């Protein structure tokens, strides 16, 4: 039994270890490690900026995304939903660089600066919000009509149905949207540097401009680490907040 269950773990772990070893070696080989140690204060500042870009834009995106996605399922709004979903879907297909460029181009038309941290946050927010709206809407729509009918027939009011039945049962799908968004945003945040948003993008683009692999990797590797840590943190959160009655079976076995 133990031997059999060990194989898939090994299959997962060995490629990961090999990848980490190669990246670590390259990181050291190109001098990224040395560069980071030499500029440690700047490293922490850029990482902090990067984290703030991600956390602030994600917090706003989760709030607005879940709110809007929920609103779209409510009576009265549901007639607008197909049109809104169309907009959301088109919006989601705009590439990351495009979103940054749009912020740079459009915000001045609204009388705001197109350069700096705020435009970067706005761009990231708009980029992050689409998958969350979409998944929240789809997740609530997917809650069984029988369950809703039973809840209504038992005398739950609209608010109770939303908070005790619809949202808890849609949570795995909503969390899926949040994880997708987070992955996209951690990866897009370096582009914020292009419109003066700061963050680890500074080292990445400097490295590219100077054709210095070391500086580039000193920025890129932490970005990848943040993406991985964020995703595993969210996976853990999901396991805590999602009811065991609706968690995917694989999570339960893994526990």
């Amino acid at each position, binding site marked *: 039994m133990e031997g059999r269950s060990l194989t898939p773990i090994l299959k997962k772990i060995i490629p990961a270890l090999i990848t980490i070893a190669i990246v670590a070696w390259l990181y050291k080989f190109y001098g990224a490690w040395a560069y980071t140690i030499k500029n440690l204060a700047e490293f922490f500042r850029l990482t902090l900026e990067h984290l703030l870009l991600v956390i602030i834009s994600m917090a706003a995106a989760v709030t607005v995304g879940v709110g809007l996605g929920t609103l779209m399922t409510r009576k009265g709004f549901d007639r607008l939903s197909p049109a809104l979903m169309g907009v959301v879907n088109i919006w989601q297909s705009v590439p990351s660089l495009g979103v940054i460029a749009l912020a740079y181009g459009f915000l001045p038309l609204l009388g705001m600066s197109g350069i700096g941290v705020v435009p970067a946050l706005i761009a990231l927010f708009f980029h992050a919000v689409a998958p969350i709206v979409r998944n929240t809407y789809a997740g609530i729509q997917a809650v*069984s009509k*029988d*369950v*809703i*009918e*039973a*809840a*209504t*027939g*038992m*005398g*739950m*009011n609209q608010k*109770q149905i939303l908070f*005790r*039945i619809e949202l*808890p*049962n849609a*949570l795995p799908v909503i969390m899926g949207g949040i994880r997708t968004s987070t992955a996209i945003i951690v990866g897009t945040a370096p582009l914020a540097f292009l419109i003066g948003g700061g963050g680890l993008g500074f080292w990445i683009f400097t490295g590219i401009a100077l054709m210095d692999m070391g500086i580039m990797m000193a920025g890129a590797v932490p970005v990848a680490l943040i993406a991985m840590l964020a995703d595993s943190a969210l996976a853990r959160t999901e396991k805590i907040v999602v*009811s*065991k*009655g*609706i968690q995917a079976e694989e999570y339960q076995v893994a526990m």
Partner: protein
Amino acid sequence: MNIMLKLENVTKIYPGAEHIKAVDDLSFDLPEGEICTVVGPSGCGKTTAMKMINRLIPMTSGKIYVDGQNINRLDTIELRRNIGYVIQNIGLFPNMTIAENIAVVPKMKGWDKDRIIERAESLLELINLPPEEFMDRYPRELSGGQQQRIGVARAMAADPPIMLMDEPFGAIDPINREHLQNEFLRIQEKVKKTIVFVTHDIDEAIKMGDKICLLKAGKLVQFDAPEKMLTEPANDFVRDFLGGDRTLKRLNLLKLKAAMRPDPVVIMQGASPAKAKAMLDDLKVDHLIVVDEEKRLLGYVNHQALQKEAEEIGKVTRSTDSFMLASSSLKDGLSEIFTHDLGYLIVVDDDKKVLGVLDTEDIREILRR
């Protein structure tokens, strides 16, 4: 008797289909503690009629009274919390444990925690699912039949006087359905709820109903006790709907007690063989039923058994399986008569006391009535 549910000229016309009355001038009274099965061909308005009672569907005109109160004067939410509701597809909340599912309505009604837990445990015991095993499990871990039992328990959680059940056993396989029906009737014996039970299955309607409400195209065709409907169908539609085996269906409904010949000739186990022989000859019968001092069934004796030497017939009594509880259905009884040795059935009570006998002639007799 207290009328718990009263429908008065209830009519439903769906917007966009003004020329069709989904429910057309429906009136009936349902006394407290009775099950009314609502049955009819699909599209006859039976589910619509039921859902107007807890106002899941607003009625177009007419009045519905629950325990004397006009439901349109009550708060919808409050009304629903006082009416148990079971649907065909169960609709357990997948994110909640079994205990949490059962607790939903009591919680909304503000019961304290201990009382809710106590209630959940006693309900699980009532439906034969051990609480310690099931309280903390989730719906998806249960079989369909178990889930539906939880659905019923959940509907009864806050002890509502009225329950609405929309084809509750419709999605269950036939063997489990029969089991659930019997179990539900057993529970109903104890809790005596007033129940509106929608079904499309006439056999289920006959079995479960104290009254059957037969609808056709929204109109009430006949509202009667099953036995009455089977013996006196109001028209050809009812006759057709009940099916050609209408008379046989009554077998399911009638109990042995109704058809048996009471107080049969019996003989005490202490009696002498001579007396038994004399009785057999006098009565011109093949066997005599032997009982003890409490009139409990021991077996029978016939001429062959009496050929053996014995001081009292208790020693030569032959045992028999040809007996049944008075509360069994005639259908089961008939089957036993054909299976067993005596050619007739001895009807007994729970203590195995002899109440009467029953043969095929008696069954013919009662069916001809």
